[in-house]
């Protein structure tokens, strides 16, 4: 009898302590419901942690630290590289931590952590998610609807940008760092993954294929950084490669700079006919038929990302401001006229706009 009373007492204590823990979590959490606007990805400072900000593109209100607020001040990780959504879930990819945090979009509370070594970007096709893991091993991880890793796909080294188009998944393989030679062994492969059987078809694009957009004709444009400062060879200018995903053919190559320059992230307008990209001196644009190809810089500045708000057609620029203080998101008309600026977290590199 005495033992039963002790067990009962201990059980009650445990239950009450669990309840207290839940209460604590509730009281410290400030949920955030992401229904519209831009979620800005802030990589964070060196040795620090990244964050997410939200911009209401209608009212121009900014709310910083939305992930930390919803999760009792726990950050999403170090070097938050990207953010993607699939249904009711959000995926915060932190490559420094080697994690993907899965959140509920109605609260932004963390629900699951996917641990990898160096996750970079994530894309979805059907029931599956595909995460590029940017190491020299050249792996893309496949997750199911429960966000469990189910498969690993071998691609070329340094998988970076990942994109869903025409029922396929495209992965830009940029190469890998050779620590002994102290140089990047540049790759130029775009891996096209068939989600149903996970087979891979490689297409040779241009040096360091990095990011993707799909134009109004269904062609995919790949931004290729070219050979840069620490790359083996270092003699190729940046370029766009136009791909036909269905038959895996590179249809065209458009060089957009000089040797020594590079491009990385790109975006396309709502009508799918003008691509925006940036170089060291600012944002440029190029039409899918070659318009504006030799135009001067559209928005001067030193940027770390560019996006287009599909609702307004406005261009959003991301200024990392030296990577050690709050960054600035600039809002411009499609012609490059300044509209307003927003102060966000440290080192913003882009946004997901809904």
């Amino acid at each position, binding site marked *: 009898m005495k033992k039963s009373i002790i067990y009962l007492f201990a059980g009650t204590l445990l239950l009450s302590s669990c309840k207290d823990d839940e209460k604590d979590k509730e009281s410290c959490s400030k949920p955030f419901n992401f229904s519209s606007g831009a979620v800005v990805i802030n990589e964070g*400072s060196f*040795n*620090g*942690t990244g964050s997410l900000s939200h911009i209401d593109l209608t009212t121009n209100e900014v709310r910083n*630290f939305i992930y930390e607020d919803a*999760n009792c*001040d*726990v*950050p999403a*990780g*170090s070097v938050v590289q990207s953010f993607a959504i699939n249904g009711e879930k959000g995926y915060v990819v*932190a490559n*420094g*931590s*080697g*994690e993907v945090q899965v959140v509920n979009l109605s609260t932004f509370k*963390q629900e699951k*952590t996917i*641990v990898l*070594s*160096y996750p970079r970007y994530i894309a979805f096709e059907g029931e599956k998610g595909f995460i590029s893991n940017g*190491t*020299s091993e050249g792996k893309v991880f496949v997750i199911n609807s429960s966000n469990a890793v189910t498969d690993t796909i071998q691609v070329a080294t340094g998988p970076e940008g990942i994109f869903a188009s025409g029922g396929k998944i495209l992965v830009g393989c940029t190469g*890998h*760092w*050779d*620590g*002994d030679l*102290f140089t990047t062994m540049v790759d130029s492969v775009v891996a096209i993954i068939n989600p149903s059987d996970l087979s891979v078809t490689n297409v040779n694009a241009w040096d360091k294929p990095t990011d993707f957009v799909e134009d109004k004709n269904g062609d995919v444009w790949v931004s290729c950084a070219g050979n*840069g*400062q*620490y790359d083996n060879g270092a003699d190729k200018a940046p370029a766009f490669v136009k791909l036909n995903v269905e038959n895996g053919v590179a249809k065209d190559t458009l060089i957009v700079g000089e040797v*020594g*320059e*590079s491009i990385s992230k790109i975006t396309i307008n709502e009508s799918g006919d003008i691509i925006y990209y940036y*170089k*060291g*001196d600012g944002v440029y644009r190029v039409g899918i038929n070659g318009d504006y190809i030799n135009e001067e810089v559209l928005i001067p500045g*030193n940027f*770390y990302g560019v996006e287009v708000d599909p609702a307004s057609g406005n261009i959003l620029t991301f200024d*990392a*401001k*030296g*990577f*050690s*203080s*709050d960054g600035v998101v600039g809002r411009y008309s499609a012609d490059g006229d300044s509209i307003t600026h927003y102060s966000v977290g*440290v080192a913003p590199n882009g946004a997901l706009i809904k």
Partner: protein
Amino acid sequence: MKRTLLYILTALCLLNASAQTLDTLRLSTIAVVPTQFKNVEEFGSVIVQEPFLTVAELLTNCSSVQVNNQGGKGATSSVSIRGYSSNKTNVKWNGLSINNLTLGMTDFGGIQSGVVDNISVYKGNSVSDLNDVSIGGVIAMDNELNWKDTFHFQIGSEIGSFGYLGNQFKTGGLIKGFTFQVKSSFLSAVNDFKYKNHKRIGTPNEVQENAAYYNGNLIFSTGWRNKKIKFENHTWFSTKKVESPKIFADSKPSVAFYRDSSIRSVFNFYTPIKKVRIKGFYGINHERFLYNDSLFAINTFYVLNNNHFNVSAKHNLKDWYFEYLSEIQFQNAHNNQFEDVKRRVVSLTKSRIEKRLFKERLKISGTGVLNKIWRPNTVFPGGVIAYHFSMRQFVFKGSGGSHFRVGNFDDLFWPKGGDENLKPEKGWNIEQSVGYSVMIKKLEFTLFGEVYNSIVNDWIQWRDAGEYWAVENLKKVNAQGGEASLEVNFSLNEVKLNFMSHYSLTKVTTLESELPNDPSIGNQLTYVPMNKSKNRISLVYKGFTGNYVFNYYSIRHTTTDNVERKALASYYLQDLHLMKKWNVKPFSIYSKFSILNLSNQFYEGVSNRPMPGRSYYFTLLLNFS
């Protein structure tokens, strides 16, 4: 842990019972050298009793020094003086510059204080007292030859929490004008401490992994003298391996580590020519460094050499004192990130004149310097005026002058973004201090106050230049602040009481910047606490000494725009030490038991790096003389 404590207490009691002579420990205070133009803090007496402390741990006692630790024993620790970044603190070992040529700074994490006999901290431009025009200050580490004892040795060990073990051995002697000293020290630590990870969901308890540290040192010192000449040599072999643990936000243990080994040797030659004292000096610093992170295929290595020559002359003529120095350093670096071996030549010419007045109560010094650098080709003239005035219990000191720093090898020679024509940082500083000592009955009070103001133009900084990162002269930075301290000593029969309290205010801000809308303007420099307070109370009774230490650090910003939410929280640390010394002639035995971070305070030395909680250490030293 209880059992360990019991063993320690039993050992202490046994030692006490066997002691023939009871000896009272001297309070190991930081000495402020009175005769210099700078207020120099010296740690010689602390090192005698606590040779196992790393230099970084030792310097935390200095209120104007900020030590930013990245983890447990031996982890990388950078040191900044008066709020200026660590590459503006020059480090000298027996006069030899040992700052890392590629980074410009010195990692004090793994250097045991016992490898030297004295450490002195000079704040600001120190050219009146030393041969250095540093911006932040100078940390001088010196080995001293013993010209009196015939033979002595010391052997000791220290054990502590988280797999820590230290061993030291020292011996020396004097035979017919020839003196020698050999020192060896070995430290290792697993650093497998537990911590609560507040930057992961559920704040899990984690154990630090891949954080082990090993350091070994061997130092030979020899000297010979007769009536006319004196010759000295100090040679230091050092090696260490430091594993880099994961940060709070990482999901997996790190596999990164670095190895650092060095051979340093200095030769000094002294001789008088008529009434002029001449000193010749040659030193070499040879360093090899390797950083490896197999996860990201990073493998960086470099080999650095610094050949350092100087000749100086000193002469007294009644109340006048003259000093002349000519110095040249030949530096080279072979770095796998550079295209070839990079070389640089740096020289300093210094002339100083000093006048002593009013029975030496007032000393006025004027120093002129000429810095010449051959790559980048720069000439920088400068000077300092200083005074020292003592009146009854008061001592006043002040100085004003220029300071100077040339960029490090990474700044100058990084393949893209480095700039061989980068301008040196230059500027000026002024400082004024007052010290006061008084005895009221059995209470001895010592008060000290100092204020300073300094400007650095052409501040060197790396910035995102679009396609790559590039170094530029970007800012004008101002450091201003003050220090105040109070020390009280009380003696009554067998009881001795000592209380010390230091406070420092450090404000370092950007005044002007080439960067458009630079957010650092008007804001505090990152990782510099504006307020610090260091306090200690010591009690000596019947041969035992007890120390209680309480240090406070205000918040430190990690972003240049001082976003509060990204700042590291303020914290305080408490330590407790119990010491005892027995003299059993010709031996003496010293023992110490310490509890560090008594209240198990959570804090971050550097953002995202876990620090150990409460830890225990026991030291035993045996001396024969």
